[in-house]
């Protein structure tokens, strides 16, 4: 059974998914961050594969991508770092990245490697559903890998339905029309959107992301979905001076109490 399904079977609310960029702040911080996040109480961890042109990301994640690339992070390096990670970390791991580096690595190879090291799902925001269904889906299925899709306040109900039908794991609800890291407080518009999605009774759980940065926004998101995803705010927290593990546990505590 995919670790994500197991997670949602055991826990239906206040699920905390934390994103970090592989290779940031230092090239070899990956396992330290994964272990510290799990110990601190993250339920699910999203590892960003850095890319030169991350168009769906705001300044904070853009910068972390740039630093990670300068540090020498590549998919090959990342998979090497993740070798044996399942001896140390048991929460579901999701890789998030743009499609070009993965296509260059080879999608089939990529899926096989994910299975080998114990990655449970991927999020590829610029991979169209059509391409996924036509070309890549069999490779994902062969390696037990889930493909997580995004929906936004502008996504039509018909399309949300289609995405739900073709998804496993969870659906990533982008909180507002924005790139990552936007400052949002939950507004009336968003409440309508959250309610609309809730009423659709999707087969997949939902996690809200983009603009979730602290306890207040996390709580608000959790009222409207099974949990939330924090990215930019976490990157900012680990960019500050100090001991990495302590910064991580401090941050997670500040969000989930």
């Amino acid at each position, binding site marked *: 059974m995919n670790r994500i399904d197991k997670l949602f079977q055991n826990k239906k609310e206040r699920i905390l998914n934390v994103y970090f960029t592989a290779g940031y702040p230092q090239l070899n911080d990956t396992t330290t961050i994964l272990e510290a996040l799990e110990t601190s109480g993250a339920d699910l961890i999203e590892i960003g594969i850095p890319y030169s042109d991350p*168009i769906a990301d705001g300044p904070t994640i853009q910068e972390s991508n740039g630093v990670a690339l300068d540090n020498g992070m590549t998919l090959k390096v990342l998979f090497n770092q993740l070798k044996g990670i399942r001896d140390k970390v048991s929460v579901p791991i999701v890789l998030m990245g743009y499609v070009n580096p993965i*296509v260059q690595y080879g999608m089939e190879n990529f899926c096989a490697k994910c299975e080998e090291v114990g990655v449970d799902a991927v999020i590829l925001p610029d991979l169209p559903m059509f391409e996924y269904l036509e070309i890549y889906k069999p490779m994902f299925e062969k390696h037990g890998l889930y493909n997580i899709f995004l929906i936004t306040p502008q996504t039509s109900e018909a399309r949300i339905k289609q995405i739900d039908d073709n998804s496993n794991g969870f659906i990533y609800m982008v909180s507002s029309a924005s790139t990552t890291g936007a400052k949002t407080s939950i507004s009336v518009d968003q409440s309508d959107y959250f309610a609309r999605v809730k009423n659709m009774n999707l087969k997949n759980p939902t996690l809200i992301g983009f603009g979730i940065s602290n306890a207040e926004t996390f709580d608000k998101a959790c009222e409207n979905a099974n949990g939330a995803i924090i990215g930019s705010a976490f990157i900012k927290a680990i960019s500050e001076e100090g001991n990495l593990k302590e910064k991580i546990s401090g941050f997670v505590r500040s969000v989930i109490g």
Partner: protein
Amino acid sequence: MKIQVDERGYYGNFGGAFIPEMLYPNIEELRENYEQIVQAPDFQKQFNHLLRDFVGRPTPLYLAERLSEKYGAEIYLKREDLCHTGAHKVNNTVGQILLAQKLGKQKIIAETGAGQHGVATATVCALMGIECIVYMGEVDMARQKPNVERMRILGAEVRPAKSGSKTLKDATNEAMRHWINNPTDTHYIIGSVVGPHPYPEMVARFQSVISKEIKTQLLEKKGKENPDYVIACVGGGSNAAGAFYHYYNEEDVKLVAVEAAGLGNHTGESAATTVLGKPGILHGSKTLLMQTEDGQVVEPYSISAGLDYPGIGPVHAHLFETGRAKFYSVTDEEAMKAGVLLSRTEGIIPAVESAHAFAALNQMTFNPSDVVVINLSGRGDKDLETYIKWGKY
């Protein structure tokens, strides 16, 4: 084999719409509506009226006699340099601003490299009284200062793209991010035949007026519509797509695309995508792309800001892969020399981008009876500083 786009936005193996879900409704709105809007008689009427009275079309097809003598062929210049604002870019912005109005959009964003597309966008926004924001790489803002000020005079806001290499690629990233953040009231006027479907085909269609006119004008002058060669420079490839469009499927016409080789293709300072690129995905389409082994986009280099782009439009990747077009690349030095040669033989100072097309003549051999059309995509006014800095004239 016919060169045409399929309903998924593919030209053979290249194209598509690789966009994050946040842009899906915008792209879908365009895809569903643009053909119908563009084909409607009232749109055509307005478009043709503006092309004639505002842009100054048809642009002349000029027999360059002294250049013809030098290269031993009959060489015609398609004078896009005489378009209002100084380049072919305005053909597309006129079309897209009318489209944006029909879609009910109140704001326009654009990216620009050399500033020509930015100026052409700022111009049509001024014409229509629509708010305009142009993203431009910080590096390009410094090397194309006059165009920055032209945009500002026209009332546009020029926003520096400070991410990545601070050039055209990054300006495009920033424009896309802006669009993600403002999906409902804003139209993004992309300046070349790049981006997610339907942009490449849409921009090519607006630019196809170039080859449509060439056909009519050659028929008048030569009694036949088809030349032996059509030559154009390729950055993203909009002037080339426009000049090739009505010849894509006329096999007797040789299509010649010219890329920028910068300091030389093997110096690490080039923008010749078909030489250095591999299939990849950038700015929403699958195309040929300059990238590292790990799939990170590589910074191109060219003396010409308008050709300084790590990809090419998907249609050009297809023309290259199928051999329908022959691709040449020319260095900064060769292009600058060709620019001066054109200035001295015909009294026309070309844009540095366009000068690349002329430099390719040195790599080709002709029969005296060959009819050659070169698309002179823009004038050199914006490049005076580049010519002066180069200095060898």
